[in-house]
């Protein structure tokens, strides 16, 4: 592979690979909000032990509590698409990793169900009237559920990359990686989820503030605290994520390094660095101004999207060093021959229009005549 991702592959392979990466980014954007949001709620609850209901109603926390269940729904729904395309792209590599993870993989869904219902409990007013220890326990379990799911996907990825160890993993049940490797890798994603969450939450708070002003419901004073908190979390997350990423690159195989720093990954490495720079610059500016601004939020959003796409491509570059994707090119070409793409495109257009209509209905279809 001597060309930038995904140009070194046959058309069908590149096509499915791109679809996989793009839908993966969409899924991750939502999942980052849920993961970082639940960790953020846990941290603030731990650090503000005497505060209860009033604290939970503070705009930043209230917005998180309100939106995490929906964003989790969105993450699960958006996750169906990369789950579909990864099966076409990696075929038996993906299936075998699933099978070798076995019970760890099978409990992902029950764990997510527990986590999901707990997000509704966190959203409810009732939890915040309960004793401090109960609140902390609920939030810790909620966060742990999502961290565990992240661990399973990380493990799945690592096993898929190590085909030579599969027979041994099967017979011994021992996963073929060290905890250090998993922790460093997970740190990239865990810390990296904060900047994404901060961008989405930043927009939510920005519009919330605007609506409050329009409705003469003054929340002044809250936005400054929120802006500083978001800036700290975003910058902190980016710094830790970059450091963990650099550490991870040190420990990966030479062939993976070759792809990351070579023609395949280098453009994305550079664009990713630019994305990180944009985000840090934008958040520092907003921190100094003590307020969220439309322009700067636009900057950090562009930076965040660029970073997410680039890190997802680099993640695939590491995998491509271990998996001979060209050997599956015939299967990709065969998959590309089946019909239905036109139906999908048509449905995508119609559904997009209907989604816009739904949003429009919420904005304009306010009550005037309900008796």
């Amino acid at each position, binding site marked *: 592979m001597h060309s930038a991702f995904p140009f070194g592959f046959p058309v069908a392979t590149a096509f499915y690979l791109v679809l996989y990466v793009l839908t993966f980014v969409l899924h991750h954007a939502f999942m980052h909000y849920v993961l970082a949001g639940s960790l953020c709620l846990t941290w603030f609850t731990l650090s503000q032990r005497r505060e209860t209901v009033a604290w939970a109603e503070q705009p930043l926390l209230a917005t998180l509590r309100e939106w995490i269940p929906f964003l989790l729904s969105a993450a699960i729904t958006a996750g169906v698409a990369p789950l579909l395309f990864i099966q076409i792209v990696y075929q038996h590599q993906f299936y075998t990793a*699933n099978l070798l993870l076995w019970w760890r993989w099978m409990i992902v869904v029950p764990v997510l169900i527990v986590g999901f219902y707990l997000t509704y409990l966190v959203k409810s007013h009732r939890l915040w009237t309960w004793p401090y220890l109960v609140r902390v326990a609920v939030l810790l379990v909620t966060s742990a559920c999502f961290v565990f799911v992240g661990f399973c996907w990380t493990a799945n990825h690592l096993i898929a990359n190590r085909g030579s160890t599969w027979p041994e993993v099967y017979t011994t049940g021992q996963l073929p990686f060290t905890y250090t490797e998993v922790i460093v890798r997970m740190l990239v994603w865990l810390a990296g989820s904060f900047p994404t969450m901060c961008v989405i939450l930043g927009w939510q708070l920005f519009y919330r503030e605007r609506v409050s002003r329009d409705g003469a419901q003054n929340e002044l004073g809250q936005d400054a605290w929120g802006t500083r908190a978001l800036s700290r979390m975003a910058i902190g997350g980016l710094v830790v994520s970059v450091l963990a990423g650099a550490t991870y690159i040190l420990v990966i195989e030479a062939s993976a390094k070759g792809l990351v720093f070579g023609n395949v990954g280098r453009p994305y490495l550079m664009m990713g660095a630019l994305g990180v720079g944009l985000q840090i610059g934008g958040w520092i500016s907003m921190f100094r101004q003590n307020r969220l601004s439309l322009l700067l939020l636009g900057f950090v959003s562009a930076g965040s999207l660029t970073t997410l796409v680039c890190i997802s491509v680099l993640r695939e570059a590491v995998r491509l060093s271990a998996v001979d994707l060209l050997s599956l090119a015939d299967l990709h070409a065969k998959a590309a021959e089946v019909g239905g793409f036109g139906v999908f495109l048509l449905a995508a257009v119609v*559904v997009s229009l209907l989604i816009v209509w*739904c949003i429009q209905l919420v904005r304009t279809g306010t009550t005037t005549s309900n008796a």
Partner: protein
Amino acid sequence: MTHVFPVNDYGPLMPGLVMGAVAIVHVFLAQFAVGGGFLLCYFQWLAMTGRDRHARQFVEGYFKVVVLVSFVLGALTGVGIWLTAIQVSPATIGAMVDNFHWLWATEWTFFCLEIVSGYAFYRYHARLNDRAAMTLLAIYAGASWMSLFIINGILSWQLTPGHWLETRSIVDGFFNPSFWPSLFFRTVVSLTLAGLVGCVVTNLMSTLDRDAQRRLINRAAHLLIPMALMPVLGIWFLLAMPPDSRSWVLGGSPAMMLFLNISIGASLAIGGYAIIGMVMQRLYINGATASLLLLLAFGATAGGEFVREGSRKPYSIRNVLYSNAIEPGEVESLRETGCTAHDPYGLRNDDMYANDQVRMGAKVFRRQCSVCHTVHGTNAVAELTGSWDNDQMRMNIAKLQHTKPFMPPFAGNAEEVEALVQYLNWSNREHPKEWPVSDDPQTIAKIESWLKQAGTLQGDFEQNKKRTASP
């Protein structure tokens, strides 16, 4: 040749049973969500037109149930099915994805619409005008029914691929012979489930008096009226099934017939109660009765899904893939090479096996039997073969597709048949440390002749009729 995957052992549960359990729960919840969309539209219309002053309150209460049950459990068990299907038969899910991924992607777009319209209604309905609320509900109902429409085509293709086998056209595969009866049947089931959940929800609305509750229950019962079509749709579906599959359901397999009867019996009980109690308004449906009817509906759904899954035997995709993930065209070559030759995976607890022949037998069992059987648990081979002597066991396994017509042909060589026989005998005698190796050339030759007689094709369902016709 299909890829050889590592196989996990679920102890006394066979993987197919784990898959069935997840699938039944998901189908029940998903169909409730589909019907729920229509029920909500109906009640919103009742509210808008002033036909029932409590309908608005019902819509709010019911939608909370949809969100808390369907959006969480329904969505996640849907992912669960996918992950479980990979555990049970990656080759099957792989074939489905390869052939229908654009339709699955299309279904995904409707999932997105469901989530957006559903949450928009859930979050903002209190401040929306009636028309906007109705539009959101209609979009939600339409999107959820479209997801049923699409997945129904993919699932029914597994049983009746129809002309797709020759043309490989996605249109032929999707609009296969059982597509329409299955779609209409599932739509009626969805409406029924929604109506029954409506009765439960109404009983939970403590602010309403009994008369108001009765009126709402009677309205919800209107969704049970299409149940009258179930016998016709059921017969249509049976007629669309391949003759051999139909024969298992109609008596050929006691288990499948029993489950079909459970499904019919439960549906009749619900339908009867609906007519007398709710439509004719002779009975009041309290919370306990409504819950019991819903439980019966779960039983009917479970029975129906069991029959639908079971009637595909010996295939997981008819004429494409056997339930043990071996392709029909592969059997002949596996008879030559053996099914264990290219299996890279050793055995867990390798030391416990008495000798290499038993080990080979365990691997044969794992590859060919374990998806539908256990040794001592559910659908246990130990019990199924318990009364057979050694030669009978050898012959029945070698001629497997003729021994039981819903079994696939044995896809291995004579040594592997013998290894499987030895493994089963060794397992039946509680895993002794010492076990003699059975390598009598005459025995192997006998097995080879049985394998040859059996051939490599699927058992001919009509063979006995043909035998009777010819002297």
